């Protein structure tokens, strides 16, 4: 039996058919958004369906351990009684709204009202327990001051009504016969792993021990990306920055995590437990001031020391970040602002990079004419699922690589780039402006 049919015939609770869906990102979100999680470790549970358009009978999506879907995609209704879908029955007049619009409305509710909704019907239970809703509530109301309790909903509840030491949190209800493409896609992106073929291609040029002049001539001048090996050998950070050490040195220092400030301790607690489409990413531009020891644990690689930004002294905009995140966190496609170039050094872990030259807009990305707004799929995982295959046949293929501990990626100015952590990773990145680029600089910054 063809593998596509096999997945439809099997019980709906154990196998699901993936349906493609393109979603547009909301206006106003920053380019450095969090992506879905992809665990490298853990047991694999086969979903076992044929990916559309793939001739090689792909194996389907591998799910993370203990992921059990309660929501099913609409395609599964083809072999079930259409009236079996409890969605509409449980919404009453609200069934007139699409899943997205209903979630937009629910996103305006406070915690108590959202919680009460889950008692109204099974369908509203599924909608009102949608994790991104609770994440917004936690981050809005509590900012970073929370201890992640396994899910955003439990986290919110635990703050409002802390459990006594011997109390166990109530378990979630298992709902069946709920079919929804939007919610299923969201669940799938949160619970699936990166496919091997998405990380297989590595076509970036590499350089080891090259001179600065050679770097400038071969890469900086012609604006080409390169992966540099061996130039972090002198960094204390490479041997020092274990999790244990970081917790000792700055476990209670608050770092920028998405819209909030969180202690490192709390962040790790979250990162270890989160199963999300877009995990929160620790991305702090003031780590060196907050933890001076970190400043002395690294130095700018020799190739990037001529930096126009340095002339601005204290007035220079944010230019360097420490980046910490679990597998699946990262940044979806964007171009760095102000025509800057960047370097990104992995201290521990590994990152998958996909880069397109300035004149090639990645598939699925729609920049506004001034480049200020970028509309692209919600998560990195969704991009890989729906768009990665498209550029296989393009004349100008993307530049791809995996950057591992001790390696540095040079991102030339104007290049589109997408990055996803393949495991728990720590990295340092800096934007810089080479002197020769002065004339391309925006006036406002020049006049500073």
């Amino acid at each position: 039996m063809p593998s596509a049919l096999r997945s439809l015939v099997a019980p709906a609770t154990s196998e699901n058919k993936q349906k493609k869906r393109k979603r547009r990102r909301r206006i106003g979100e920053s380019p450095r958004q969090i992506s879905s999680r992809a665990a490298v470790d853990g047991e694999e549970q086969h979903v076992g369906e044929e990916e559309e358009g793939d001739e090689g009978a792909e194996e389907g999506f591998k799910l993370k351990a203990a992921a059990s879907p309660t929501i099913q995609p609409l395609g599964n209704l083809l072999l079930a009684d259409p009236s079996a879908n409890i969605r509409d029955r449980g919404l009453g007049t609200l069934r007139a709204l699409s899943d997205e619009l209903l979630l937009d409305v629910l996103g305006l509710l406070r915690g108590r009202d959202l919680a009460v909704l889950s008692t109204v019907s099974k369908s509203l239970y599924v909608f009102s327990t949608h994790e991104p809703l609770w994440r917004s509530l936690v981050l809005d109301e509590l900012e970073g001051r929370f201890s992640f309790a396994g899910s955003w909903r439990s986290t919110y509840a635990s703050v409002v009504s802390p459990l006594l030491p011997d109390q166990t949190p109530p378990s979630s209800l298992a709902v069946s016969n709920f079919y929804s493409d939007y919610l299923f896609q969201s669940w799938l992106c949160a619970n699936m792993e990166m496919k091997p073929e998405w990380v297989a291609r590595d076509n970036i040029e590499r350089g080891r021990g090259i001179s600065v002049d050679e770097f400038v001539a071969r890469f900086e001048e012609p604006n080409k990306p390169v992966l540099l090996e061996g130039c972090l050998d002198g960094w204390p950070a490479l041997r020092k920055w274990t999790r244990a050490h970081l917790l000792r040195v700055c476990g209670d220092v608050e770092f920028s995590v998405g819209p909030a400030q969180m202690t490192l301790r709390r962040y790790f607690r979250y990162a270890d437990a989160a199963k999300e489409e877009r995990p929160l990413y620790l991305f702090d531009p003031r780590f060196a001031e907050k933890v001076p020891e970190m400043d002395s644990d690294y130095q700018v690689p020799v190739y990037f020391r001529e930096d126009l930004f340095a002339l601005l002294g204290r007035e220079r905009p944010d230019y360097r970040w420490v980046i910490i995140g679990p597998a699946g966190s990262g940044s979806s496609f964007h171009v760095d602002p102000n025509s800057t170039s960047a370097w990104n050094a992995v201290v521990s872990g590994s990152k998958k990079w996909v880069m397109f030259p300035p004149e090639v807009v990645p598939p699925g990305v729609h920049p506004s004419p001034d480049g200020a707004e970028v509309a692209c799929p919600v998560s990195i995982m969704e991009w890989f699922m729906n768009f990665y295959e498209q550029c296989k046949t393009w004349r100008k293929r993307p530049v791809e690589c995996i950057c591992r501990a001790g390696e540095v990626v040079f991102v030339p100015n104007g290049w589109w780039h997408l990055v996803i952590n393949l495991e728990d990773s720590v990295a340092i990145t800096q934007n810089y402006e080479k002197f020769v680029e002065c004339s391309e600089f925006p006036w406002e910054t020049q006049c500073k």
Partner: protein
Amino acid sequence: MASQDCEAAASSRAAAASSQDCEAAASSRAEKEEQKTVRVAASSRAKKKEQKTVRVAASSSRAEKEEQKEERRTVRVTSNDGEEFEMDEAVARGSVMLRHMMELGIALDGVTLPIVSGEILALAVSYLRFHRDYDDGGSGYGYGYSYGYHSESEDTALTNFDRDLVKQLDQATLLDLLAASNYMEIEGLLRLTCQTVAEKLKGKTTEEIRQTFCIQNDYPPEEEEEVREEISWALEEKSLD
């Protein structure tokens, strides 16, 4: 002789007749000519008139177009049940969907919205028209937002309009308007309708929500109890039904 006479007579009669005919013919020809002339004259007059009209029309439409070029271009939007609405392009730009269609040049012969009814489209258009007068204009994205660059009285007028617009709507119309504002990408109206629906969900008990939205309870009693247990923290201050 007689036959000759007859013949002659006949021929003369014939001749006479023929000449009569001729005359008649001639006169009729003349008449026809005259008529033709008249017709020609008439037609040429008509033509001249027509030409004049055409010239006038052309020049006025050119003038119109130039006028339109300077400020006032309109777009015609039709609902799925045939109701037409003509509005200034500047007003229509409040809908990002219409804005893009106009920019792409595919709205010149009007736009038909297959999923929006006349009743709903009328509400959307009235929203666009009212907000256009208060908009600080130009940004496209900012249209429909109240950025606070208005005077207090303008803000009040905006708030009053929005409140009155949604106050009168029954639930089905409100939900349809929400969906339409999403479809037509009218940001401010989408926010307004979402907020209005959200208000109907706030501060209510389980049973009140079921009644408001005609929702059937599909929980078996033991599962309902389980869920209440799950969210007991939210029910603590409320009276249970």
